[in-house]
């Protein structure tokens, strides 16, 4: 099968960021927490992207900052998928009271503006890696649930599910072997998009000061720190913004590519 170019480009960018995150200690030229001369403009050989207000190397902070964004969004999205897929398959296949209950909970959560929801969770639990994951999972799982439920309702009406029922297949096999693999292609697309949303959310939380506690390197936090001086020293905000955008864009490209490959 021919690979869509969007898929190839997207995978290449994401793979690059993954490598950067994994090998951050090796490739970062400086310690991201150590101060040198403050507000150096980009271009110097030792500090190619310049330094920030506290004199820390921006390149090194970007490289180290890839870690929390990628691993937290991956963790949050995976957990959201485990919860959403489990509940969605069961609700979509069984329907009835179970479905009504799950759907009600999901709709209540989804009725809050997402950012307010994250604020409430973080403020209640305090900022930390774990709590960022909990907040993002809390916001994503109901959306995943609704997609999976809709697909499960559709597939549950097919004759091969009726055949499995008349053969006496246990419910868990019907869910995991008959329904889930047929939902997988659509879910793979959504997974990539949602991973991108999670990266944006984690960036936004950092920007609002609700992400990782300082002085940890955090792309969203870097934008906040540099915001006041952005007109005089644009490099403070431009590079972290490019980092977030490239990651999210690449994930969207993968999603588009997967969708194209399916057709």
């Amino acid at each position, binding site marked *: 099968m021919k690979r869509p170019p969007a898929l190839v480009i997207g995978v290449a960018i994401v793979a690059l960021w993954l490598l950067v995150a994994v090998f951050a200690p090796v490739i970062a030229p400086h310690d991201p927490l150590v101060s040198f001369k403050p507000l150096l403009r980009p271009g110097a050989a030792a500090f190619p992207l310049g330094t920030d207000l506290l004199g820390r190397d921006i390149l090194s902070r970007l490289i180290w900052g890839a870690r929390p964004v990628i691993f937290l969004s991956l963790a949050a999205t995976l957990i959201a998928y485990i919860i959403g897929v489990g509940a969605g398959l069961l609700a979509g296949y069984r329907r009835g009271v179970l479905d009504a209950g799950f759907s009600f909970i999901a709709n209540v959560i989804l009725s809050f503006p997402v950012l307010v929801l994250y604020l409430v969770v973080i403020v209640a639990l305090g900022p930390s890696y774990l709590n960022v994951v909990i907040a993002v999972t809390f916001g994503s799982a109901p959306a995943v649930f609704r997609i999976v439920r809709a697909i499960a309702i559709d597939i549950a009406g*097919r*004759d*091969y599910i*009726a*055949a*499995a*029922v*008349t*053969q*006496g*297949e*246990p419910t868990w096999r019907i869910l995991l*072997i*008959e329904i889930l*693999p*047929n939902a997988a292609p659509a879910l793979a697309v959504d997974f990539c998009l949602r991973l991108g949303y999670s990266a944006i959310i984690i960036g936004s939380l950092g920007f609002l000061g609700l992400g990782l506690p300082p002085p940890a390197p955090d792309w969203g936090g870097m934008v906040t720190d540099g915001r006041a001086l952005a007109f005089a020293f644009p490099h403070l905000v431009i590079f972290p913004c490019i980092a977030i955008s490239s990651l999210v864009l690449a994930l969207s490209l993968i999603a588009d590519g997967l969708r194209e490959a399916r057709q």
Partner: protein
Amino acid sequence: MTPILSIRNLTVALPKGGDRAFAVEDVSLDLHRGEILCVVGASGSGKSILSAAVMGALPGRLAIAGGEIRLGETLLTGLPDAALRRIRGNRIAMIPQEPIAALNPAMTVSRQIEEVFELHSDLARPVRRARARDLLEAMHLPDIDRVAASYPHQLSGGQCQRIAIAMGLAMHPDVLIADEPTTALDATTQAQILKLIRELKATGEHGVLFITHDFGVVRDIADRIAVMEAGRIVEVGEAARVLAAPQHPYTRALLAAVPRLEARAVRPAAEAVLTAKGLTKSYGAKLALDGVDISLERGTTLAIVGESGSGKSTLARLLVRIAEPTGGSIDVGGANFLASRGSALRRSRRQIQMIFQDPFGALNPRRTAGDIIARAATLGGIHRAEAKARALELLALVGLPADAYDRRPAAFSGGQRQRIGIARALAMAPQILICDESVSALDVLVQAQVLELLADLQARLGIAILFITHDLRTAGAIADRIAVMQHGRIVEQGDAPAILSTPAHDYTRALVAAIPGLSATERALGPSIRPALPPLPR
């Protein structure tokens, strides 16, 4: 007389990597005014591509690779899109296969017909409206005012098809293309639409290109017949000649595969394996099934015959407990099937298996044929280690090669998939098979093979079969007894020969009369009786 439509050496190329190079290859046909030319062939023979080519509406990946199509003096091939649009719906019109899907659900019937005049004429609005009304009247639609103001979903399938025909006729087209126009309709409705198309032909105004797979319909309607196989026309000639003395072996095979209206001698009664009493199912206020009593005996076949909406599929779903009845009882092998719950129900399900209508929807596209059958065998009580061997045996039994084991459903044709579905059901070693329109989605040759396979398996294994169908010919070919359903009730039930030759209920008589393409002898004498099958092994 010069033909109104003339096709010369038409070739349509398929994209590379398909199962053949051309969808339509070197086809030449002439169609005259006042004539119905039937193009007959199995699915995939290229007959629908041929009609799309004439309409200038080939699917995007296909292109005309050679030859020409002429409409009167106009050369259609190579004409720009804008010019083709002026001809479509104007000088050439199409009668669709799915009338309800072909009409706009958000527009009243009258508006849709008026729209045709709007596109192709400069008639004033009141004139357009009056013409639309005249057309509806010509289609013998009842209660014209109500129909004209209705939306498609408020009308029946047959009424929608009449409206689609009215739209086609609006501009007095030279050529009408009817692509399987009655396939989606019930037998009695089909008979009425065929009558209407014959009337249209009698006006001498149009030439009708009629695409169908059904020789019954051909017998009823064709003046000339063209038989297509794998994109080529293998035989073309006067209808009476082709039907009585087919020249090409493929035509002969197709004609031989059409079940004649005949019942076979009834096998002696055995003990009942499935009994349903007073079976009722309601969806809210709507009663889908109303007190149905049936009894199915070991090694015999009971056909349930009815039109769409008669409740026959609901009955099948209740019998295999995919849906629960509102009332009544079901006994399987002497035990109360409805009392069974949980894991006991899962175990007792293996006695009664179902073969579905749509071979494309009945198999999980992500699993291999072997995996599907072997899993059924495991559930049927065979040890996991022996399941693969059993699956291979079953593949051989239903006439599929051993290498089918590792292939997914997409790699099989409709008939082959239906065989996999049968193998899956047999893997459970059931006493009862429920076949819900199991051959109606298949081509006539494949249909005959699957029916033969079922009869053969029944003779060997002593399975009881409940065969649900809308087609009395198929019912006659396979059943010992026939039950006729209408509006959720069984209106008549009895031995197959008696039902077919001397139907007692009005509705049964209407169904028998609506069978397309009954020969004169069949109409005069009723069904003949075939010798009984050999007795069951004990």
